[in-house]
């Protein structure tokens, strides 16, 4: 079955191309389902953590709540403010969304590579593409011609680029240990000798990674760009209907992608005993997503002046230390 649908080691003919199209469309449908139910999971979870019930009216247990929300957004009027820079305003959500979907191409979901591109620059591809979303966010905030949006967009850009550096540097530790940027090879390096997930030797790197990832995703305690109480949700204040939906969608696709990246780099991706690979991958990703929502229910928002200095004065020196330690130890142990 898996062999029939695989295309990575086949000659490039109609059959292989058809399999690729099937793979890509399945991932698209899958990610829309994941986003729908991670929003439901978030609302339910934070509800429980605050002693509320959460959504429970639409469908059994409120399971259709997010679908109702999406349908509502689809039939909302698409308002473009008179003073907005019209063309940029219109394309910004598309620019923000498409890289979020593209990064999923290199995440290895399971041991057979039906849904994963075998790319030797996997990690670099992820970092480069995820940075493109910043352009969409800044353009959206600027083109709205709204003061809240401008501040939100600027804050987003400053935050995302500042935390991009420690994120890339902490991943470097894993690349150094595995000797490859290919995410498939990184998982394979963790399930061969010395049989240890990189969370153990790269614990410092993982701490830097998870903090930077939270900031890259603009999740609490780093949700200043969209601070509802002061910026009226920042760069997307002026957006309505499906344009707003695509900003929102991009955010949750990244939540899944970043969780998948974390699970792949530090927790051995699809590896695990007894159960099939994709179930293990799902369990690990769910734990990551749970962690991000848990933070959201627990932490207060940090201040702007603490935000950027924390990245540059704490995380970047720590990630340099982690990199030097990894390199020296790897050299000495060989």
């Amino acid at each position, binding site marked *: 079955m898996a062999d029939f649908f695989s295309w*990575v080691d*086949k*000659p*490039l003919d109609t059959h*292989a191309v058809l399999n*690729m199209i099937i*793979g*890509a*469309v399945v991932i*698209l449908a899958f990610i829309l389902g994941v986003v729908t139910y991670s929003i439901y999971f978030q609302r339910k979870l934070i509800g429980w953590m605050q002693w509320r019930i959460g959504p429970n009216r639409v469908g059994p247990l409120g399971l259709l709540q997010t679908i109702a929300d999406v349908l509502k957004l*689809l039939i*909302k009027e*698409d*308002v*473009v403010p*008179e003073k*907005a820079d019209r063309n940029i305003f219109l394309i910004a959500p*598309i620019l923000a*969304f*498409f*890289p979020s*979907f593209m990064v999923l*191409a290199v995440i290895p979901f399971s041991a057979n590579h039906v849904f994963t*591109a*075998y*790319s030797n620059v996997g*990690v*670099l591809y992820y970092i480069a593409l995820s940075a493109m979303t910043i352009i969409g966010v800044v353009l959206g905030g*600027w083109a*709205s*011609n*709204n*003061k809240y949006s*401008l501040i939100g967009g600027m804050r987003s850009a400053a935050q995302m680029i*500042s935390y*991009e*550096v420690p994120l*890339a*540097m902490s991943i*470097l530790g894993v*690349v150094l240990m595995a*000797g490859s940027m290919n995410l498939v090879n990184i998982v394979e390096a963790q399930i061969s000798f010395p049989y240890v997930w990189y969370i153990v030797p790269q614990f410092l790197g993982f701490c830097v990674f998870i903090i930077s990832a939270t900031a890259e995703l603009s999740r609490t305690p780093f949700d200043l760009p969209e601070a509802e109480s002061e910026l009226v949700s920042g760069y997307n204040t*002026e957006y309505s*209907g*499906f*344009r707003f939906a*695509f900003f929102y969608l991009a955010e949750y696709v990244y939540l899944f992608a970043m969780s998948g990246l974390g699970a792949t780099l530090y927790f051995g991706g699809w590896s695990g005993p007894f159960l099939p690979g994709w179930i293990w991958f799902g369990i690990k990703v769910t734990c990551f997503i749970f962690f991000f929502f848990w933070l959201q229910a627990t932490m207060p928002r940090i201040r702007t*002046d603490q*935000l*950027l*200095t924390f990245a*540059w004065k704490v995380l*970047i020196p720590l990630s*340099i230390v982690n*990199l030097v330690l990894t*390199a*020296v130890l*790897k*050299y000495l142990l*060989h």
Partner: protein
Amino acid sequence: MVSYWNSYLFIFLFLVLGLLLPIGAIMVIGPLLRPKNPTPEKLTTYESGVEPFGEAHVRYNVRYYLFALMFVAFDVEVMFLYPWAVTFDSLGLFGLVEMLIFLGLLAIGLIYAWKKKVLEWK
């Protein structure tokens, strides 16, 4: 035998689908379903209920620009470290020492910016 052409074609398919979904939803399906009834009040910029004054395309805090410059310098240097990390085993001691010097320069740059108070937010 793994074919890289296949993988890059697959990535290209992701690009196509990633553009088709928002364009299709916003520009093809959306106009059929949503109302279009703009009124002057609806098209004004939101500013917490008061009449908006002035433009939002104004000068903003120069701090953002400094952080952007810092980012360019550091991110490019991090990108240089990636190929080194992949070929670490074959470079041996030479590669290790070279990169320690490089990281030292990076750290000096960071300390310089720190002392010049570029990293303060006031």
